[in-house]
């Protein structure tokens, strides 16, 4: 039976470097996309992504499996993003504000060229709508769809109430459905 994420992290904290390799391989993609879609540029995303993993490595001896590893990891990611947003003048109160302008949609050059036109256009609309969501709503959506966190885990990772997490996810979902014509 394969080891759980929590067991792997404890093993890594105990000195087993191979356990970290397994954890990293599993979570790197979702975490990268979570960060990439939370910031404006890929360069920023790569820098923040690396910092988040460095913090997880440094905090390995303080990890306790009271909650899922993914919740712990995305809590670190959330804190790092909050610092990033604060440094750009965003206060926590404004995270739930109405749509904020973003520079470009996240799906673009990386979109698969062989997709048919309609599918590509839908993907582009979705990417643009996702990028335009308020930070807190986008974060809730990404924590759910990339991180696999449920409402309770989203609330724990973002230190918000469950009702707040639920409504952010609901608002985000509704807006994105509207964007792709799936009302």
């Amino acid at each position: 039976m394969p080891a759980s994420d929590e067991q792997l992290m404890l093993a890594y904290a105990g000195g087993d470097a191979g356990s970290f390799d397994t954890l990293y391989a599993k979570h790197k993609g979702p975490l990268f996309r979570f960060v990439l879609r939370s910031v404006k540029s890929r360069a920023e995303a790569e820098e923040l992504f690396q910092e988040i993993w460095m913090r997880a490595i440094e905090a390995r001896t303080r990890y306790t499996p009271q909650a899922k590893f993914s919740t712990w990891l995305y809590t670190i990611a959330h804190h790092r993003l909050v610092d990033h947003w604060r440094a750009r003048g965003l206060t926590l109160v404004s995270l739930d504000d109405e749509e904020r302008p973003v520079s470009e949609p996240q799906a673009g050059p990386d979109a698969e060229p062989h997709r048919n036109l309609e599918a590509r256009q839908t993907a582009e609309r979705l990417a643009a709508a996702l990028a335009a969501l308020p930070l807190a709503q986008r974060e809730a959506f990404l924590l759910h769809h990339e991180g696999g966190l449920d409402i309770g885990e989203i609330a724990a990772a973002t230190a918000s109430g469950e009702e707040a997490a639920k409504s952010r996810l609901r608002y985000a979902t509704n807006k994105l459905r509207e964007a792709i014509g799936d009302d």
Partner: protein
Amino acid sequence: MIEPGDNLVKHYRDLAREEPPAALDSAILAASRRAVGRPSLSRRWAMPVSIAAVLVLAFGVTLQMQREEPGVATSTPQYKSVAPAPPAAKEPALTLDRAISSAPPPVESAPAPNKALASRKRATSEAPPAPLGKIESEAPPEAKRSDAPAEAFEKRAEPKAFADSVAPATAARAPAAAPAAPAAAAAPAPQSSANPSDESRTFGTRDKRESANALQAPARAPAALAEPERELERIARIRSEGRHDEADKALAEFRRKYPEYRIPEAMWERVKPR
């Protein structure tokens, strides 16, 4: 909420599946290995060799102590040739051996030296290992030492003092060594003696009174709250004194130390970079 067959989920999955670049993967994995990296060969063998050397020395000293003849007041001619220096003076072991063999047999206080020896042996085995260089280059140290057993590798006894006061010296060393041993044993404290984890408490508590738009520090035990908040207060004080570079460094260090700690808004205003 969102069902598995949801169109939105399907379209989201169809978005470009970005991945981090391979160079970034390599850097992160390398850092993870460095963090739990195996020590070098010399470091790995230092401890066992040091312990073995301490045991050999302790055994040698014990043998010499058993051959000693304490309690005899007469001083032998051999000792007069040795300078009456403080305990730190060095003497060849050979000279001492001759002195020991020529001294009259011990009269009394045999139990005291043995008991002191036993406690000193225990203390010696618990002592931190001396540097490899010192262990290899020095002959078995002399009996009279002033402090912790680790200092045995650096000091030699005064033969005259040795002949005159072995029993009191060993009795005095035993209490001196015993406190040093717990201190030495405590010295290599585990690196991972973690503070009560802020992160773990964060997961276990949710603030029900928080409004939808505000973030608050998660509830924690009072002991765990103290340290990060004290550090933030210190950073805020540094910032208010205009020492911004120092405050920036302290803030970065705080973030490394407490990556999951949520800095309240009011505190952030006081510590944030200017």
